């Protein structure tokens, strides 16, 4: 068949549509517990396993998002995003103008870099009123994870992890690299079951300030971010 002008218009229309759809790429985070999505209700999340873990709060900062292709950085943004497991509207991050770009790896920070930590008051997701800033000692809290487990011999069996710290040797910032199979939507799953069954909750259950333990737990958390 010889292409007619009509066909060409259709082709052009098709191309534009693809462009428009892909112009705004998305990066989504899915907090999970094992295979289940972690959906925090007022009473928190109750695991279906026998471990009786509940999770009442899970928030973390994502920053410094970069896309890489075969060892070369092809895209980056400088924004800071607070992901809150109790607010699904925070799960999706729009990545602008990535439609012409090929990439096979994503790199981002779990937490807030040290420069931002010492630069004074900031707005948006970095506003201290978001509850992710330590008051008695300056610094962002990169991650808050709170819940209960019968293993914790604490008040109400609670565990509270407020992970942060930007000074060496207690710099808790983690850089996460994930290979991507296709250049479609980027979906990152965070399996808290892997994390919480990998630590001894009877010993480690209260981390509220910068410390070596907080750095170690941040590192462990960074390992349960995955592409499924």
């Amino acid at each position: 068949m010889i292409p007619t002008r009509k066909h060409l218009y259709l082709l052009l229309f098709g191309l534009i549509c693809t462009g428009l759809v892909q112009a705004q790429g998305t990066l989504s985070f899915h907090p999970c517990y094992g295979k289940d999505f972690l959906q925090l209700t007022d009473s928190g999340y109750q695991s279906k396993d026998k471990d009786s873990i509940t999770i009442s709060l899970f928030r973390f900062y994502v920053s410094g998002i970069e896309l890489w292709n075969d060892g070369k950085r092809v895209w980056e943004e400088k924004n800071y995003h607070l992901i809150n497991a109790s607010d699904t509207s925070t799960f999706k991050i729009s990545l602008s103008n990535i439609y012409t770009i090929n990439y096979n790896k994503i790199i981002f920070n779990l937490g807030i870099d040290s420069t931002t930590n010492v630069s004074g008051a900031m707005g948006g997701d970095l506003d201290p009123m978001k509850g992710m800033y330590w008051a008695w000692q300056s610094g962002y809290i990169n991650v808050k994870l709170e819940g209960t487990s019968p293993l914790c011999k604490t008040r109400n069996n609670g565990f509270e992890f407020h992970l942060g710290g930007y000074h060496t040797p207690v710099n808790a910032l983690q850089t996460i690299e994930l290979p991507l199979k296709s250049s479609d939507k980027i979906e990152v799953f965070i399996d808290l079951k892997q994390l919480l069954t990998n630590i001894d909750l009877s010993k480690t259950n209260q981390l509220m300030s910068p410390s070596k333990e907080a750095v170690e737990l941040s590192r462990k958390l960074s390992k349960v971010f995955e592409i499924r």
Partner: protein
Amino acid sequence: MKKTVVLLIIIGLVVSAYKKIGSYELIVPNNWPKPVYDFNRNPLTSEKILLGRVLFYDPILSKDNTISCSSCHSQFSAFTHIDHPLSHGIDNQIGKRNSPALMNLAWNSSFMWDGAVNHLDMQALAPISNTVEMNETIGHVVEKLQQSPIYPQLFYKAFGDSIITGERLLKSISQFMLTLVSCHSKYDSVQQKKASFTTQEKNGYQLFKKNCSSCHKEPFFTNDQFENNGLQVDTSLKDIGRMMVTQDSANYLQFRVPKLRNIQYSYPYMHDGRFAKLKQVLDHYTNGVVRYKNLSKLLLKTINLTSNEKVDLIAFLYTLSDTAFIFDKRYSYPRDILH
């Protein structure tokens, strides 16, 4: 007319050995170094300064609306809390430390006795949330300000819209604090050759330069560092100082070297306010220094002062008093806005 005024101000600045910082009239002596605070990130305007001043004096920052910044930082005492060794806050609770005097804050690289706060903007968060000071959260303060009859208007004037955020709140309080510049003491006049010391003050200044000025460095009378100055540990407080922040035993009992300007007004002295009089402070340095392993290197050599020399030294310290600062109306309670 306007041009003439501007020209006169410029000539005035040149002649009087003072310089201006930024676009706002923050006038400081010519020989002062560049501020640490980055004014480009938070340029001073009179509207934001006013908003910060109102916030500074408003107990709305505390949980039960009883404690304001000025509760522990009153202008007549160079913005500290006099008569109380340890400052008290909400429900008459006593804190662990003596509130520091506030002045020349744009030249601090950190804040608090132990340096726990890394930026002036973040300073206010500490007392707001401390359970024995204001026992509030910044989120709740913002809610209260939104419902207040005065603040939406003040934020509108300062920021062009009435949206109230934590960032705007903190930056406004910074703006007011940044204007608290003390540089009109007799010492400053002497430096500018507009006055001269008495013989006693002059002798005191020599003693000061010999014994004190390595830590209490001019022109701010601090080296902006933390030192262990050999104070006996108060066993009821068990305050380990900067080690709390760094977890490093090298910082055991280290506290910020305080600024000495307006020291006459800002008694009692030391991080826990243990000394009511300057004489006791000098007695500590001549006779009371505990030889800790990490004692400040600058105190390793014993300081010897006769009682007459101590009197002279104190006479010099009194030349650091800045009455213009203590009575400056721009820093006082904004009674036309807060009632």
